[in-house]
């Protein structure tokens, strides 16, 4: 390995470490537990009160969701495996 190759390999390291971290994160997220997302809280007013008190105070109560009848479109999303909510 030439000196410039050694320097280049050193410069590659941060990107490669990022790549390895991404690989393990995605593998873990898709098979064991998704650490950066959890089940949706759009209709969970208690969760909103904890996570965003300003919006919860503004609304004063849970929102009334629309009917699921007659929707213009629907596609089943591919959901990950979630961890227990923190």
């Amino acid at each position, binding site marked *: 390995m030439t000196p410039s*190759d050694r320097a280049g390999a050193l410069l*590659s390291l941060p990107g490669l470490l990022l*790549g390895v971290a991404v690989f393990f994160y995605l593998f873990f997220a898709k098979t064991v537990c998704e650490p950066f997302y*959890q089940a949706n809280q*759009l209709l969970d007013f208690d969760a909103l009160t904890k996570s965003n008190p300003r919006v919860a105070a503004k609304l004063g109560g849970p929102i009334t969701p629309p009917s699921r009848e007659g929707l213009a479109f*629907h596609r089943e999303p591919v959901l990950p495996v979630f961890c227990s909510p923190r």
Partner: protein
Amino acid sequence: MSGAALPKLALGFVAAAIVALYAHAIFYTPIAYGDQFQEIHRTFTWSLSQYLSSYMAGQGPLFRPGEIVLRYVILYGFGGDPFAYNYFQILYLALTAIMALSLVPCRNWADAGAAITALAFLFGHHAYVAVMEANITFSNGLVLLLMLVVLHVLQAKGSLTTQILAIALSLAAVLTKEVGLIVPVALASGALLGFPGVRRSTAILLVALILAYVGYRLATLPPFEGEMGASTPHTFAERLSNMIAAPVMIVTGDPFDGEWSQFLSRHLYPWRIIRIALGLATIIVILAAYLLRKRAAEAFPDQELVDGKWMLLLLIVGAASSAIAFQYTRHRFGAMVLPVAFLLLDRSLRILIWRLSRIDVAAWARVAAVSLLFAFSLGWATRAADGFVVLRNIGAKIMIDWIEHWQEYRAYEGRDPGTLPYLDASFWAAEEMPWPTVRDDWPFVKFWLGDEDVMNR
């Protein structure tokens, strides 16, 4: 396995990892209401000709018919529902990576180190992440993608096919968004600077296109009336301020949206200092390679140098971005400069690595120089990781918007009951998306990785 195979594999692995990371967040980003819903509804319920004629009849201050065409291509090309926008964005991520990789050689580890760092720069730059909002992806983002193709065109042999491609790219860009003007400017300038890909006759046609576009824009469209926010200029001084702010934003990310008053009033979190330092360091790296061009010519072919014509092209593209800011400016406008900067950064790093391996200096000086380059590469890799944090925050912001403004959305759209099945479907589509746990992120993310400037505020 040949000597080049492992470096190529490493480069491809890093590119795939960044695309996969961003795509993961994009896949879980709900459809936003603002700037999206009414356009989506019209695309589903109107014919293309009806939409275009309505758009042209009620012409506001913006001329973007290409955006409308793209909405039909995206919605009907990717499954016929609003998730199509997410799929289009994932395709955009992949195409950016493929086009970027096609521009840089990878024959050894020196090439790989330079290309991996340049790739982290491209994806980690605040302007790139900012174009990942859906509407922006198929306007500013499309122009970024076209600029990557422009770099191929400029370096091609100047065949008839290349000339047709140059004109087609220019038309597609200017019809999509104002910043698309950068594409014909880059191609025509390239011809004048001596790049082989664009013939003089094509350059004349492109200049005519630029003049026709600017003439049409100034003569027929009404001016902005402050609806674009504080960055909408009205006086000459405000326009000048925007035009100076635009290139400064491209390099440092500040002042946000051209508002100088925010520069010192906002908190100087570490991520902001890192962003500014990395932007300035990128300029220094490219300038250093330019100063080394004669010595570098001993080891690199002309096509791989950072010479005068490339530096001028970078300045022209930067100046064109600045000129467009006379109308209004945004921090994401730097996106169109990124392809040229990406290519020059790759070349510059290769030249610096080569020079450092040959220069006769004390060991400590060599170690210090290589350490600085390593810190530079590490910095851009962290910015690429930061892009994921930002995309999650964009998703979280859209979710909260659906909750906070749901009654307003429904009251507004309820004026036309035909829209409600689409609005309700969009609500449930958001409800079925995973929830980004940004509130639970560790404090170091906020201080070292967070980039609130890029988020959809």
